């Protein structure tokens, strides 16, 4: 399959216009011997018909192709995506346009960004939000960089409970030297330890809400206060769908609220493309990373939107930019915007409530059916951790063979958690499916010893 529309006659005409007889003459600036002689060793060309067969076969190797019932969370969730959403998002007007650098022909994209910013600000309880960042992990990292620039201090303290992958991203990007990652204690931040780590060098304290274990950590408001007392910013990494039922971080002390927007209508797609969101107080707006759409008017006084405060960005400010980000996750921010619009005020409350209800029902069934209890006794919202009598990897394998992805083996994150299973239940799971899950859990635990050992990772 070639997408080039060119006949030999046209090629000849073009070369004539250029006054040359062979294409190679155009390559005269290339050092000799540099042009590859042979063809690349890649497969193809394949027609669409062949591609459907070949790529379809690869996709079929994933459980998802067989409609496995999933109870997986840990940062990404299997939510219902309204039928209208892909129809809108896949309109080529949205899908195949570039970054809105010519606003006169990009009001669609710019209006959507403005709406996304508005709704993220509302959900998080903060003043402003940006057009998107790569994902939850890099959003936390960018927030830390902002805090550093704002406070002029180097140190970042990450309280226990942040998604361990995100903590790793922060360490990678913000430099491990100045990033202190504290362990969770009983699935929560260790408030005393956090307090001790906050010092005059500290730019930011990073908290999670609900946290990686699904827990709504009661200490968060107080910890924000502690951060402020120490002159640091309080950064909250929040799960945005829960915010429809939970008090927004902006109301209990967050200066910056970031997170992963995937739960808002973004296909889960093996973890990406995802969409990081970034909201903060208005005092911090000039240090924000990424694009911002702002309202203005045109020549004729009509309302319109443009990218604004571009002097923060790399293409203007180069090494003095607030971030190096350029291409972002615009299309996924569009997904989130359409999702929030379709569900709306009442739908968002309802979906968050359904997740809450079903999650709590599942925990109860795990206890009743399989005699399993929570690893941490703490309030949780949309996922929880079970303490298993057997390695979680075994239980996951057992479930996989039965078409149930029972939960996330936390041993994949930390060997110390190898008997901990993180279970998330979304509105998509029916009571019957949850009951089935509980039975599979019970069987898996009973089958202990008969299940072959599998790699923990």
């Amino acid at each position, binding site marked *: 399959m070639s997408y080039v529309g060119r006949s030999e006659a046209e090629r000849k005409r073009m070369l004539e216009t250029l006054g040359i007889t062979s294409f190679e003459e155009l390559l005269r600036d290339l050092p000799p011997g540099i042009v590859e002689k042979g063809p690349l060793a890649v497969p193809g060309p394949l027609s669409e018909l062949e*591609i459907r067969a070949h790529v379809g076969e690869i996709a079929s190797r994933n459980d998802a192709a067989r409609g496995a019932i999933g109870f997986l969370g840990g940062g990404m969730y299997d939510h219902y995506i309204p039928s209208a959403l892909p129809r809108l998002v896949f309109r080529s007007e949205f899908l195949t346009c570039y970054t809105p650098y010519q606003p006169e022909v990009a009001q669609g994209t710019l209006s959507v960004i403005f709406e996304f910013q508005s709704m993220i600000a509302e959900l998080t309880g903060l003043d402003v939000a940006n057009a*998107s960042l790569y994902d939850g992990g890099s959003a936390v990292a960018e927030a830390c960089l902002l805090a550093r620039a704002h406070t002029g201090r180097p140190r970042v303290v990450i309280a226990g409970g942040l998604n361990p992958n995100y903590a790793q991203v922060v360490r*990678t990007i913000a430099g491990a030297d100045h990033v202190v990652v504290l362990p969770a204690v009983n699935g929560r931040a260790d408030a005393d330890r956090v307090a001790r780590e906050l010092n005059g060098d500290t730019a930011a304290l990073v908290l999670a809400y609900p946290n990686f274990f699904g827990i709504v950590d009661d200490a968060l408001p107080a910890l924000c206060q502690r951060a402020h007392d120490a002159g640091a910013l309080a950064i909250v990494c929040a799960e945005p769908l829960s915010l429809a039922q939970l008090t927004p971080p902006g109301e209990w002390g967050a200066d910056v609220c970031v997170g992963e927007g995937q739960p808002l209508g973004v296909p889960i797609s093996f973890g990406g493309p995802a969409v990081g969101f970034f909201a903060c107080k208005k005092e911090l707006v000039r240090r924000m990373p990424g694009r911002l759409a702002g309202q203005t008017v045109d020549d004729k006084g009509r309302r319109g939107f443009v990218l604004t405060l571009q002097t923060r960005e790399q293409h203007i400010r180069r090494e003095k930019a607030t971030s190096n980000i350029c291409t972002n996750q615009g299309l996924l921010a569009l997904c989130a915007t359409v999702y929030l619009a379709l569900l709306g005020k009442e739908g968002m409350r309802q979906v968050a409530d359904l997740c809450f209800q079903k999650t709590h029902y599942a925990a109860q069934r795990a206890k009743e059916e399989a005699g399993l209890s929570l690893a941490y006794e703490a309030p949780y919202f949309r996922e929880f951790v079970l303490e298993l009598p057997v390695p979680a990897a075994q239980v996951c394998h057992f479930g996989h063979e039965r078409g149930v992805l029972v939960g996330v083996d936390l041993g994949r994150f930390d060997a110390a958690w190898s008997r901990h299973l993180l279970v998330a239940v979304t509105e998509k799971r029916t009571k019957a499916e949850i009951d089935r899950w509980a039975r599979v859990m019970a069987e898996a635990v009973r089958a202990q010893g008969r299940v072959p050992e599998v790699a923990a990772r």
Partner: protein
Amino acid sequence: MSETREVPVMGEGEIVEPLLCELSREGHRGVRLPASDVPETKMARAIPSWAVRQRPARLPEVSEPEVIRHFTRLSTLNFHLDAGFYPLGSCTMKHNPKINDEMAALPGFSELHPLSPEEASQGALALTHVVSKLLCEITGFAAATLQPAAGAQGEMTGMLMVRARHRDKGQGDRRKVVIVPDSAHGTNPATAHEVGWSVRSIKSEQGLIDARALAEALSDETAAVMVTLPNTLGLFEPRIREIADKVHEAGAYLYLDGANFNALVGLVKPRQVGFDLGHLNLHKTFSQPHGGGGPGAGPVLVSEELEPYLPVPVVVDKGGSYAFDFDRPRSVGRVHGFYGNFGVLVRTYTYLLSLGPEGLSEVSREAILNANYLKEKLRGLFELPFDRPCMHEFVMSGRNLRKHGVRTLDVAKRLLDFGVHAPTVYFPLIVEEALMIEPTETETLHNLDHFADAMKRIAREAAEEPETLKHAPFTTPVSRLDEGRAARELKLTWEWPEKS
């Protein structure tokens, strides 16, 4: 030359499309969810009271038909690739094949959770693995990470790897300078800064790297040199091998900003030219749709020397099955919460298969031919600061229009009236009034000629009726927007109308 039409319209000063908050009507509902089928848990009993939201988030209340109309109408305010020619330099707005989207949307991929057991994700792991290998074949490098979500994140990942390598060689404290040509994209210096290094910019000579300036700049403090090839003027550095040698002699690493790789596909393998590492932009060269800003993917390819530093996890072939390898002690760590923009990789794989070896080499050749043809057609209309064969793009200057009081910006805006997107303007910074034009290989001769004709007409208008240009565009949903006001007033979120 400008015709006029008398059009009774709905009245100026109007709203082109209301915002969701303006469409919202109390009590209207969009999609519905099923009722709960499980026994109720009282939230107030399960969650600390401070955390239970008291006031519902003020989100829009709009019926499904109206939501659909809103976004449908908004969409029509966009110019887009499927509507016409998009000669944005350095952006490679090539055709976005629909089969790529179709494959990425297969439930086996799009509904796959990143924390599924490896045994339940073998397809995704296999695809990731093969895409790495193919990109290595295409670039000549030894290994790759597909984790970076865009070019800029690729650059950062690359710099982190270089830093880790220098540290391992005991030079981490000393080597903290990155050299970039003054024609470089803003992400290069911004990235260097983001990893805590300083930037040394070197002046170009005739649009190319000045070997002497580079030699002067190189020192034992140099960590890396970032080179875009072809550069942002569309020129291939003729002395790239020499440059590589010099960089290596100085103990630094040569980094490829591969944003312009569309010029090299199947033609030149950067590793063979002397690059140590670099990123590709899958949303440029590999036909990922740009989505109004993203997503993209910026895989980083490296030499054997740098392979140990790749981010974790790396997908490894265990002979018949695939697994994540986290046990890489020299890795720089993670740069993404999961494994990067996997959906983009599915599209890339599909694209590679569609094209095959011949199709891939056609990419660069036809892109180069198109750019040179267009350059020839525009000759004389605008200045051509560097008049030599270009690669996949070229840069002109609108300097010559200044005498009419017309700027490059005006040319760009006027083009919008002709069903063509504007080129990249005012970049690279080293060309005054720059117009950076990249046609890509998928544009037909007819489209190139149409663009050239429009440019011809605009150049004539600049001389004969400059006011037309200064007030362009005329046929777009809004006319020129007041960017200053946006920055001054800084309205970044909507205001709800008084009563809704």
